[in-house]
Structure formats: structure tokens, C-alpha cells
């Protein structure tokens, strides 16, 4: 980590630049020189880059991701109890590293800002020789870093990113996502909402005014309107508004009987807390019990809303109370090391690290195009989400989606959510062409 070697590509490029005069036409792109691939590991180790938020609002999620990565690296290198490697359906990894090389890692701070995240990822690629970048806790950052990895020529294994765009409009060949998206949330939530609240409902949306919020609002609207729900209004709220009272009071007398909070992180904590304060959870409208829905739940963040989450529906990628063998093995391994259960962010990043390592092992190379081919269409099980497939067309994982509800009688401060329903994969699947975008070709650097 502390060796400051010039990356091979950098050297090639600068020598190319130095050797070629300005007048020479455009045939000299670095690509024509690249015989192998960027940051090809030559020694006994291979370097992964863990790019997570360490400062700012998502620092706790970032810290949990980092814990999971460390655990994953231990398991890949054959230390610890092996965690989900024991339950993982692919048995390519033998606990001796990847392709005979021990895994080491470098870390960086995304600050949940695109610029900082890209700078950090570039450092890992250019200075530390990272072969793969993974992590992140917001879609803007994920898309920005994914674009960077495509340009540079390394694989990006997305962390917590829920926007459709990551594997839709902005998808890239070098990028892969294990986490689910707003489309799947909509598809998974709708049947549960129908069972609990019926088909004659009027929804009022409060939506964080940026790409993810719009994406979430669109998906929920689409699926609830299919059920026969009406949408009273969809109001955009500024990111980080803090006090949402001025957006909540119009809900009171709007005639709507469901409030959908398309917020995440601190916005979610605040808007939910305040909506409950304004009596919305206990309200009666049109002779029906008023309901609040938080489409994307994060258990870590939900803790910040305290009692207010009780009985509130939402979806999540994974929850530590799941009872399948994979989840149990992961919770045990993580809990033993850190003393508390892992979050969904920790789970998805752990899976991504394992999946990447496994793909490299099966491909026998770290070359992005080779690894990508091994991931495309890869079907696996035993990582906590049941049978899962990395779809080749958009590099999105398809798996069951959890619909959860704030628990009425929590037994500990981690026991915030209970799983209401596991919506099977078939119900949340959609054609890859629906979300647009182009993967383009792999870039090997």
C-alpha cells in the first residue's frame, strides 16, 4: 500500500505522450498500447479498493460497509470462520486468496460527494493499483464512480445504491450491482400494500428533490396506481430540509389516506418523525386508518427515528433476522467479530466482495472483460437472498425482495424491523430494455 509505484498505464500513457509530438494525429490513444490490463497484479497480492463514506451523513453506514469488507477479505484469505463462503453455492474460492494471490485492500472517503468519491477512487487506481473499486452509500456517488471505473478500466462493484439509473440509464459494462432498485421496491411493495390497505386509497407523496427521489416516486406511483390507488399530490422537498412541517401540514386536510415518504437517510428520519408527530399514524381519513409508507428502509437509519417506525411499511435488501443458512452464517460471523448484527449495507458490500473474488477465481484472471463474463448470467445461492442471478443485459442482480414493517415490540435496539413478506423474484423482474441505457463494451484499461 505504501509503495508509490507509478501505475503501468500511467507510465505507458506518459511515455506515449512524451514520445509523440503534438502534431501527430489521433491514432495514439493509450488503448493501442495496452497489452495486458490496468493494474494487473504481478506480485503475491491483489488490491481491492473500498470506497465508502467516512465523513458526512452516511458515515455510520460507511463504517458498517468497511467492517463487512474486512470480514469478506478475511474469509477470502482463509481467516476467520469463513462466513457465507460456507453456504455460497459456488465453491471456487478455497480460502487461499484469489487466483493464488492474497487479497489486500485500501480504503478511501467518498464524503458522499461525487467529486470526492471519484478523487478517492482515482487515488486507489492510480496510486495504490487497485484492481476493483467497491462501496458507496448513495446513487449519485455510485453512478459517478461507476463512470470513472469504466473510463479507467477497472471493475466497479456498487455498494448501497437504489436508483434505477445505476443499472438503467447510466449502466456501464464495468459496473455491477447486487442491491435492488426502486422498480423492484415498487413491484414488491404493491401486493403487500393491497393486502393491508385495500385498493381504494389515495396517496400523497413527499419526494426528495433529486434523481433517486423522483425514481422512487415514479415506481411507487406506477405500481400503486395499477392497484387502483389514486395519487393526490406529489410534492418535492429540498434535500436536507430538516424541518418538514410545511410539507406535512397540507397532507392533513388533503383527503389523502396514505403518505409515501420517498426520502432516505436523515431526510427519512426527520420526515417520518415529524409526520408521526403531526398525528398521521393515528389519523382516520375517509373512515380508514391513515398509513405511512417508507419505500426504502435502512435499519441503521430507522434507529434514528426511534419509536416512530412502528408499523410503517417499507422494503429492504436484506435483514439480519432472516433465517436462511447464508444469513445465519453471516450474522454469526459478523456479530462475533463486532458484537452487533450487520446492516443491509454491510450485507450487500460483503456479497459484492465475495462475488467479485469468486468471479475472478472462476475466470482465472482479473481482467475486467474476463471477470465480467464470469459474472454475467451467474446464478448463485446461499448469500442470504435465496436464488439470485446477475443478469447479463444490465449487470443487475435479481433476487427476492423483502417487505418489512417497523416492529411493534422490539427486543433490542437492533431489532427494529420485522419481515412481513418475501416477494419472489419473478414478481419484481422487468425487461432490461425498460430502463434504457447502454452497457457498452468492457474497458480493460
Amino acid at each position, binding site marked *: 500500500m505504501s509503495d508509490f509505484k507509478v501505475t503501468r498505464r500511467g507510465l505507458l500513457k506518459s511515455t506515449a505522450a512524451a514520445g509523440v509530438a503534438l502534431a501527430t494525429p489521433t491514432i495514439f490513444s493509450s488503448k493501442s498500447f495496452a497489452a495486458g490490463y490496468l493494474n494487473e497484479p504481478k506480485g503475491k497480492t491483489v488490491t481491492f479498493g473500498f470506497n465508502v463514506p467516512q465523513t458526512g451523513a452516511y458515515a455510520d453506514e460507511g463504517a458498517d460497509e468497511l467492517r463487512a469488507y474486512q470480514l469478506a477479505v478475511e474469509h477470502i484469505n482463509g481467516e476467520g470462520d469463513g462466513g457465507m463462503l460456507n453456504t455460497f453455492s459456488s465453491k471456487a474460492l478455497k480460502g487461499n486468496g484469489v487466483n493464488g494471490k492474497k487479497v489486500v485492500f485500501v480504503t478511501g472517503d467518498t464524503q458522499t460527494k461525487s467529486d470526492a468519491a471519484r478523487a478517492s477512487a482515482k487515488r486507489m487506481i492510480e496510486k495504490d493499483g487497485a484492481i476493483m473499486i467497491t462501496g458507496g452509500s448513495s446513487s449519485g456517488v455510485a453512478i459517478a464512480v461507476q463512470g470513472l471505473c469504466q473510463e479507467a478500466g477497472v471493475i466497479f462493484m456498487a455498494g448501497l445504491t437504489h436508483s434505477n439509473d445505476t443499472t438503467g440509464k447510466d449502466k456501464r459494462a464495468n459496473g455491477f450491482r447486487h442491491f435492488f432498485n426502486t422498480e423492484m421496491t415498487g413491484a414488491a411493495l404493491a401486493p403487500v400494500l393491497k393486502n393491508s390497505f385495500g385498493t381504494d386509497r389515495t396517496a400523497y407523496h413527499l419526494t426528495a428533490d433529486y434523481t433517486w427521489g423522483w425514481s422512487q416516486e415514479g415506481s411507487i406511483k406506477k405500481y400503486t396506481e395499477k392497484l387502483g390507488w389514486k395519487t393526490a399530490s406529489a410534492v418535492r422537498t429540498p434535500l436536507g430540509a430538516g424541518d418538514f412541517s410545511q410539507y406535512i401540514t397540507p397532507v392533513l386536510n388533503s383527503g389523502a389516506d396514505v403518505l409515501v415518504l420517498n426520502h432516505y437517510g436523515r431526510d427519512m428520519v426527520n420526515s417520518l418523525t415529524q409526520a408521526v408527530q403531526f398525528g398521521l399514524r393515528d389519523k382516520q381519513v375517509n373512515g380508514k386508518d391513515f398509513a405511512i409508507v417508507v419505500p426504502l428502509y435502512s435499519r441503521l437509519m430507522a434507529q434514528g427515528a426511534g419509536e416512530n417506525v412502528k408499523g410503517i411499511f417499507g422494503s429492504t435488501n436484506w435483514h439480519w433476522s432472516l433465517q436462511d443458512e447464508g444469513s445465519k452464517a453471516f450474522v454469526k460471523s459478523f456479530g462475533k467479530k463486532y*458484537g452487533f448484527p450487520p446492516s443491509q449495507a454491510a450485507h450487500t458490500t460483503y456479497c459484492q466482495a465475495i462475488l467479485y473474488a469468486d468471479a475472478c477465481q472462476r475466470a482465472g484472471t482479473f481482467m475486467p472483460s474476463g471477470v465480467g463474463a464470469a459474472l454475467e448470467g451467474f446464478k448463485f445461492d446461499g448469500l442470504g437472498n435465496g436464488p439470485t442471478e446477475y443478469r447479463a443485459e444490465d449487470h443487475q442482480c435479481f433476487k427476492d425482495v423483502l417487505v418489512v414493517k417497523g416492529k411493534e415490540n422490539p427486543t433490542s435496539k437492533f431489532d427494529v424491523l420485522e419481515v412481513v413478506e418475501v416477494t419472489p423474484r419473478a414478481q419484481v423482474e422487468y425487461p432490461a430494455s425498460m430502463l434504457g441505457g447502454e452497457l457498452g463494451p468492457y474497458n480493460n484499461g
Partner: protein
Amino acid sequence: MDAILLQVLNGLDKGGAYALIALGLTIIFGTLGVVNFAHGALFMLGAFCAVTVKALLGITKVTLDPTQTTPWGAPMEIRQPYVEVWFGDFGTTLLDYSVPVSILVAIPIMLLIGIVMERGLIRFFYKRPHAEQILVTFGLAIVIQEIVKSNFGANPIPQPAPDMFNGMIDFGVALGFDAGNVVYPAWRLIYFLFSVGVIAAVFAFLQFTTFGMVVRAGMADRETVGLLGIDIDRRFTIVFGIAAVVAGLAGTMYTPILSPDYHMGMDFLVLSFVVVVVGGMGSLGGAVAAGFLLGVLQSFASMNEVKAILPGIDQIIIYLIAVVVLLVRPRGLMGRRGVMEQ
């Protein structure tokens, strides 16, 4: 009509918080001539007084139950707060009322923090350029923030209001509306009344006590007061402490509305500066007026009817008002000539 009334209430509530933070900031401006970028951090520290009190009250007696185990194999812990073990029902009530109880703790603590800050750092910067004051207080704000983060983590920590105040108050009936049309959360009404009370107390203190008179004279002309042989510095130390207490109380009482996290001070920092400047630098009345004005206008700008005409207006309304006020009234609503213009 009821919708507008509710928005006015929202605005007054928000405005109460703005006014409280801005009040301390403008007192520091006016008396010490210091641009205090750590003021948001004081607000945040106030909020964490509540967190700490609740955490201390909630220190639990841990008994291990060997018959049950966690998913990772450790024995299940059964936790009961000591206050409940010791005091029974009174302990439960105390826990429930942790936020109001925190006020009693926050006052001396914030006063102490303010005095230490002024004596330890701020007083060396009275004569330094504003840019340096900004840099040093901003650095201090970051340091305070990071210390809080390393102790409490980055995620928001819920601080519920006492059960009694968790409900809604329906006072629309009294104003001639149908029942259920104008209902408002009890805690928010309490926050508004609380902010009015604190503002009144600060004004009364400055207006009717000798100490306050000296401070006001010092705000008007520091040199002269110094020449009268009054030890203005010592009084200004206490003034800084009072400003810290006001900001801290604003934070403590705000916690049930906004779950506190280490970063909340920075979010309020820019806003409170805008409030102070719109009100007029160093003007106490201006800060209060501007706080409520911005709160109410922000609420109105967020109404669907307004946003339909001007999309995104709620995103920029605060800044737009600041620009308009400063262009129309060069020294803000109630600013005096020559303060902070160089």
C-alpha cells in the same frame, strides 16, 4: 384559510428556532465584534446535552440471560435502566421527561462551554480581521463536531418528547373552524412558546438590569464604556456565555422535532447567518424579526399553490429574501450604520 393558518404556525415554530440561534449570534457580533462560525456547533452541543442526559438516565443494568442467545452466540442481555431500578415509576417518568430535564443541565453546561470558549480562544481574536475569526471558529466547529461524532456516531439519535406532549392540540374550534381542521402537535406549540419566553427573557435582561445596560452601551460604543472604567471584558465573557446558552437551549428543545446528529450545526450555520444579516448586524430586534419572517415566508413558499407558479421557490426562498432585503435596505431590517461594513 385553515391551510394558511397552519403554515403560519409552521413558520412561527421554525422562526422560533431561527430567532433563538440568530439572537446569540447577533449578540456576539454586536458586543464582541466576532464572526462566530462555531455558533452552529453550540446549537448542536445543546442538542447533545439532551442526548447525554437521556443516555445517562438510561444507563442500564445489564443482566445476562443464559437461556437465550443472540444470533451470533453470545448470551442475550436483559437491560433495565438504573433509574427505574432505583426509583421505580418516578424513574420511568424521569426518563420520559428527559428532554425538559436536559434544559436544567444544558444551562450550566452551555454557560461553561461559552465562557471557556471565550476565555480560551475568542478573546484573542477581538482585534483580528474577520477572515481570521472565521477560520479559527470554523476550525473549532469542525473539531467540536468530530469529537461529538467519535462519541455518538454519525447517525441521528431519536429524542422523543414526553408522552404527554406527543399528541395534537385542536384549537381550530376555538377560532371557529370545524373540529379536526386546525390541529397542531403539542410539542411544537411548546417550542414556539419556549422560544418566545427565552427571547423575552434575554430582552428583559438586557433592558432592565444594570449588567444589561452596560452591555447595551458596550454594543453602541465599546471604547467609551471602556473609558468609563467599567471592566467590559469580564461582562462580555458572560455575554458570550449567555449567547451559548441561548443557542444551546434552542438545540436542546429542538431534539424531539429533529433527531440530533453531529452535523446538524453546520446545516443551521449558514441559515443563522442569513437571518442575522437580514435582521441587521448587531440588532437584537432585527434578528428576532428576521427569524420569524424567514420562517413564515419559507413555509408559504413551500405550499403547493406557490410551487406550482414558481417551481423550486422553496429551495431558494431564504436566499432570495436575503438578496432582496440587502439590496433594498443596505443594513438589513434594523441594522445600524457602520457595523461590520469594513
